[in-house]
């Protein structure tokens, strides 16, 4: 048994920012991470982070209020307006702080942080470091975590929450390097484990973006909010779904169909390629569905050639390398085949603006959480912002909780590790089944089911069939076994345990989507094509149940921005 006052699960931007904040508050905090924190998926973010700094000459009139309005409009009015206002108000300060900590943002000649236009934004407010902003921000926070001497347990894989008397008391985790399960006990836990992109076969996300933190919170009875809202990024590489940043279009790139037409003129005539992601992804999918994909195939072109080699080298060097290495196409000389790809989980563990979940002692931040600031559709550049703003807030709130808690502190030395023992017994049971049901076959069927039945366009019969398939897959997971029972770095065990959680999280998406009889943001139904504010201006709350998710709803916090039809 290991004890710290506060355990942060996940070493990406949200988790590290929470840990740095807690350390500053004098809390004994430790970070648990499945990978070295510098390898977290935050580092794959490319285009930038939004804040109304008004550095761009064309953004001189920008303000946090305008940023909040764009965020709420982009969310199709499902975001909680108080949270969006708080986030955009915090934004300039947290960005200056990251800069003071060394983040190498790109610069203007006047020596200020450079900002580029992004989709759905009224002003160019996306601060960037070339097209590697996530990598730069992540390494800056890793460096700060080392500077503050924050304890990091690296390659430790969390599998379960410890909940006693209705209070979160820590996590059980597998030590990948030494083998075996350990109890990490704490007075509070911050979950910051990222999204669940890997529940879809066609995702931009890292292989570790499996929704692990969402799953273990959900399995402990914590609700997942708005899980039906899945963002498809308009531009993933055709063969691998690797991300081509929205910055490609922010810098002036075109989307082109088989007829050589900039087809966004039909879908968003004013802003063209800089429409929000939900609208742009649907536009591409519509072109493909109507036979105007390139050569009749399932992709269109992202054309950057007119930007010229110099601008691409300066602003978009990373995606040029990715296109060359992974698609065999040099954007300087050829258009890039792209396809909309699962990119972001708008929903997540239900939290308030301070990261608190309904379970006392459990906090969450970043993509695994749902505050909600993204509502039904997240704007590009707002996810990096969310990680840092709400990572900081969750770290502060968890610290205050820990300080105010009576009866905290380390459990008696030599106390048994009953939760870890139960986890170890479960793995023994899996091993005892021999190979059992093939976890990898189930995983493959799940990812295809989610793409085909809960993709960009949705409809009742298809979703019902998809939900039935998912429930059947869940039933099969109860018969999964293990092929390998060895002690250290046991990928077979980790990926089998992980799969059970992925199915639970994906089921929350499936059930929420089927129930929501309207179209809003990323949730586009062909059988209910319009938004229905009368019945559906509310958050979905999914609770785990014996026969699948049980859905409840709670109201959206409205504010100064009256819900209107979204037009761009």
């Amino acid at each position, binding site marked *: 048994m290991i004890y710290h006052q506060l355990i942060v699960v996940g070493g990406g931007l949200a988790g590290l920012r929470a840990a740095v904040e807690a350390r500053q508050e004098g809390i004994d905090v430790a970070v648990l991470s499945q*990978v*070295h924190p*510098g*390898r*977290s*998926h935050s*580092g*794959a973010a490319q285009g930038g982070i939004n804040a109304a*700094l008004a550095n761009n000459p064309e953004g001189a009139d920008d303000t946090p209020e305008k940023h909040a309005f764009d965020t709420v409009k982009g969310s199709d009015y499902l975001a909680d307006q108080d949270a969006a206002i708080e986030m955009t108000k915090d934004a300039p300060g947290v960005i*200056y702080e990251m*800069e*003071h*900590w*060394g983040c*190498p*943002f*790109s*610069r*203007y*000649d006047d*020596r*200020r*942080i450079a900002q580029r236009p992004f989709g759905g934004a009224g002003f160019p407010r996306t601060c960037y*470091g*070339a097209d*590697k902003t996530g*990598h*730069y921000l992540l*390494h800056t926070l890793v*460096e*700060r975590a*080392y*500077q503050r001497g924050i304890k990091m347990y*690296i390659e430790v894989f969390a599998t379960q929450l410890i909940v006693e008397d209705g209070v979160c008391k820590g996590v059980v985790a597998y030590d990948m*390097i030494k083998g075996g399960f350990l109890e990490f006990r704490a007075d509070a836990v911050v979950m910051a484990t990222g999204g669940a992109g890997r529940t879809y076969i066609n995702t931009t996300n*890292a*292989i*570790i973006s499996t929704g692990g933190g969402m799953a273990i919170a959900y399995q402990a009875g914590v609700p997942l909010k708005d899980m039906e809202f899945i963002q498809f990024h308009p531009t993933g590489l055709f*063969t*691998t779904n*690797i*991300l081509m940043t929205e910055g490609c279009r922010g810098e002036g790139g075109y989307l082109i169909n088989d007829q050589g037409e900039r087809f966004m003129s039909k879908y968003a005539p004013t802003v063209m390629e800089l429409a929000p992601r939900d609208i742009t992804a649907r536009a591409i999918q519509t072109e493909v569905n109507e036979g105007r994909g390139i050569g009749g195939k399932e992709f269109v072109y992202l054309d950057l050639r007119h930007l010229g080699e110099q601008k691409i080298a300066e602003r978009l060097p*990373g995606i040029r*390398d*990715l296109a060359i*290495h*992974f698609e065999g196409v040099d954007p300087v000389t050829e258009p890039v085949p792209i396809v909309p790809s699962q990119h972001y989980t708008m929903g997540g563990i239900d939290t308030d603006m301070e990261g608190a979940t309904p379970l006392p002692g459990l906090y969450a931040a970043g993509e695994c959480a749902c505050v909600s600031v993204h509502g039904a559709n997240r704007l590009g550049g707002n996810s990096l912002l969310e990680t840092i703003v709400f990572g900081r807030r969750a770290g502060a709130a968890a610290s205050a909780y820990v300080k105010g808690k009576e009866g905290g502190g380390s459990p008696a030395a030599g106390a048994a590790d009953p939760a870890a023992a139960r986890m170890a017994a479960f793995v023994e049971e899996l091993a005892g089944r021999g190979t059992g049901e093939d976890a*990898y076959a189930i995983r493959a069927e799940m990812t295809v089911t989610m793409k085909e039945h809960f993709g960009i366009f949705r409809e009742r019969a298809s979703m019902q069939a998809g939900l039935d398939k998912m429930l059947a897959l869940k039933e099969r997971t109860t018969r999964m076994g*293990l*092929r*390998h029972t*060895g*002690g*250290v*770095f*046991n*990928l*077979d065990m980790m990926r089998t345990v992980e799969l059970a959680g992925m199915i639970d999280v994906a089921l929350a998406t499936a059930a929420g989507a089927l129930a929501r009889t309207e179209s809003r943001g990323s949730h586009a139904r062909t059988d209910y094509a319009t938004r229905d504010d009368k019945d559906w201006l509310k958050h979905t709350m999914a609770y785990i149940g014996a026969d699948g998710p049980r859905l409840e709803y709670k109201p959206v916090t409205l504010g100064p921005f009256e819900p209107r039809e979204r037009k761009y």
Partner: protein
Amino acid sequence: MPEARFHIKRFDPSSGIGAHYDDFTVPYEGSLTVLEGLFYIQEHLDGSLCFRYCCRAAVCGSCAMYIDGRYRLACQSNVRHLTGETIVVEPLPHMPLVKDLVCDMTDFFAKYETIKPWLIRTSRDPEKELPQTPEERKKLDMPVDCILCGACYSSCPSVWTEGDYLGPAALLKAYRFEVDSRDEARRERLPYFDNERGVYRCHTIANCSEACPKELNPTEGIQWLKRAAVRRRLFGRLK
């Protein structure tokens, strides 16, 4: 369907037998990266195989390995571009092993931490950003792209023979901060690389720059640090 043949170095500390190689054949359609091949093997042929992975887009630094006799990221290595009948996959050489393709990175990160890899400032921070010109920022382009994959460290003969040498990745990180116009470390970071564990152990063999899968040049950064350290000793100036 085309097939790729893998010849993979295996090691399990609990088995009692030493390192050996196993062969696997992986069918594929279209294209196949080495990382995808490893997943196929782990899922279908041998559940005990282990390796590191995360982003599969050459930005996280998890899957640096020794593939067909060169340092590469498994995710960025398409089997079509590898010559030879079988693809030889080995962990980063000269590193202690955890299991199979997973090596022990403890010393690597301990050395990284040694050089104080963070922006050091003594002045009060302004309300807004610290000013920096595009030219000053450009000096950071090369070193800030480091993904800490460990390929350079594993390739460096000075690391192999001098166990306490900090190695190219840590020194490149020191360079990244020393060259940053906002950094005010002055003498604070210097003692950690201007010593017998630091820059003077680099004999400009430049294996690191050859090995780097991001095509960075740690050798260049280390020479800059050497010049800075000598200047500091002779004239009392660092930059």
